[in-house]
């Protein structure tokens, strides 16, 4: 009897475990499929509207009052300049700050204060950065509604994210490797340059990819600092007025004529492509770096 009971209990336990595991698996699959299918539907819907409009003319024309003549050139070039400039400003500053905080800063209340603030800043809504950019860069520094003001604002937005990601990956570099380097007589700067940075770089790059992808889709801070809607020329200098893809798309969407809505769909596809290309480039870079490290 006892044996039988035991066996039964074990059997019941086992099947219960199995059941809850199955349920967990099911929930996991559903929570994977659900957002993906939403994304898929959105992309299919946009592609159906936008693909017929996508052609060379669309990419190389300036905005126009005729939807069929209107193109996305100034917005596309504006976005590429903007993101390039933002990367140029934010990446060195972000990595530099992370290295300082991780490797050099003493562990005192001041450092923790900075750390807390950085993680808080990462959660601040982007429009707040837009307002800061408007006050600081556009008005106070007198940069106007220019490319550089936009890039500086987006850099502020990205810095906390880049710093946090970079710090996390610097932390992951094994202590043994640092100690080994020190044992060989390397000084701190050499250890950082030859050991910590190269090993941390793939992780840092991942953080940068994610933040850049966010930046290219940002609309709110750009509208706040006054990126323009109709710009039919390409930026010639850092202080040139500019427009960007999300702003052009937003404008087309809100027009009454159907033709502009099609343009907006095509614009979304262009934006998605740019984003995918950027991510692909970064992933390729990361893989190359990882290979080199091995």
């Amino acid at each position, binding site marked *: 009897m006892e044996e039988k009971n035991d066996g039964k209990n074990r059997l019941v336990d086992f099947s219960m475990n199995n059941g809850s595991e199955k349920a967990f698996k099911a929930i996991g699959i559903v929570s994977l499929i659900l957002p993906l299918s939403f994304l898929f539907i959105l992309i299919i819907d946009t592609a159906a509207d936008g693909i017929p409009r996508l052609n060379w003319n669309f990419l190389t024309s300036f905005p*126009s*009052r005729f939807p069929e003549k209107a193109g996305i050139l100034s917005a596309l070039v504006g976005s590429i300049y903007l993101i390039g400039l933002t990367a140029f400003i934010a990446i060195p500053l972000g990595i530099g700050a992370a290295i300082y905080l991780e490797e050099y800063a003493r562990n005192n209340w001041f450092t923790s204060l900075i750390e807390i603030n950085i993680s808080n800043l990462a959660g601040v809504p982007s429009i707040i950065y837009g307002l800061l950019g408007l006050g600081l860069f556009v008005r106070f520094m007198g940069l106007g509604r220019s490319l*550089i003001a936009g890039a500086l604002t987006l850099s502020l937005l990205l810095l906390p994210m880049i710093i946090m990601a970079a710090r996390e990956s610097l932390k992951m570099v094994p202590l043994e490797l640092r100690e080994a380097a020190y044992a060989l007589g390397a000084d701190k700067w050499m250890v950082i340059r030859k050991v910590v940075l190269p090993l941390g770089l793939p992780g840092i790059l991942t953080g940068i990819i994610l933040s850049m992808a966010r930046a290219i889709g940002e609309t709110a801070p750009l509208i706040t600092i006054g990126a323009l809607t109709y710009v*039919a020329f390409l930026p010639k200098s*850092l202080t040139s007025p500019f427009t960007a893809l999300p702003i052009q798309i937003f*404008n087309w969407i809100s*027009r*009454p004529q159907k033709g502009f*809505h099609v343009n907006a769909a095509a614009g979304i596809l262009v934006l998605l492509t740019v984003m995918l290309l950027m991510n692909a480039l970064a992933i390729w870079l990361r893989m190359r770096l990882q290979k080199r490290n091995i």
Partner: protein
Amino acid sequence: MGKEMRKKLMAITWLAIIIMVGCRGSSERAGEKRPEELSGVILIDGSSTVFPITEAVAEEFQKKFPAVRVTVGISGTGGGFKKFYGRETDISNASRPIRDSEQKECEKKGIEFIELPVAFDGLAVVVNPQNDWCNWMSVKELKQLWEPEAQGKIMRWNQIRPDWPDEEIHLYGAGVDSGTYDYFTEAIVGKEHSSRGDYTASEDDNVLVQGISTDKYALGFFGLAYYEANRNKLKLVAIDDENPENGNGPILPTEETVANGTYQPLSRPIFIYVRKDSLETKPHVEEFVRFYIKMAPTLVKEVGYIPLPSHAYEMVMRKLENRVTGTAFSGSKVGLSIEELIGR
């Protein structure tokens, strides 16, 4: 070593600042233009309603003067005026006349401006095409429906007219930050910026079109251009202002009735405001504004608005040439004649 790193970081920071300042300097030098060449930047911002017209003019202007760079932003009429009196723009697009408060700001900053009406826009009151009972409404009925006191009280169609169905009425309208809302409330409720709050508001008129076209018991208002682009999905409501002087009975908005002032009170003038000092110091701004008025009759129509009568554009041009500053209004005014509108 910490010091060394810090030194390098400082050097990089300074380098960045120097580059930024340097770029700023060089572009300012580039901005200094010889007048005979006509080049430079024209900064325009303001209402999204006026945007399509200004965009069209800018497009044509740049074909003729490729060295002039025109930029147009959308900050709304109020936002545009803020930039205008902050000296950030040369021209402001406005779907309502300048307010007293905005005018005072201009005075305070020593900014003189010229007010130029460029087109008419009709506000359309629309219902769902399946709505077979509501073909026209009087201004009184619209007021009864939209005034602040109606909130939570006038909720069913048969409360407006007893023979209309006993069904809930669903209201859609422009968001409270738009010039469209200001004008509608002034014209219908009688007080600018005052209406019931329990309606579906959106700054994006396409959302309103979507809502009304899928809801049999909906009623809403927005710019006529949005009706024109969605004719098959909506039904227009004729408006009776009960004033026989400008046409008897309910009148539908058409190009004719908006332009000749019989579609009252829901046809409104839309404007550009030009800074006098920009006109005088930047020849390309003056050239642009002249071009604007010259091209307006054709371009206004092309982008879905209603041009002023042709003699009105002549008057507007004269106003520009004589540099008549100031406004003919204070706040949204309803039912003005062309002469009053231009202010002579």
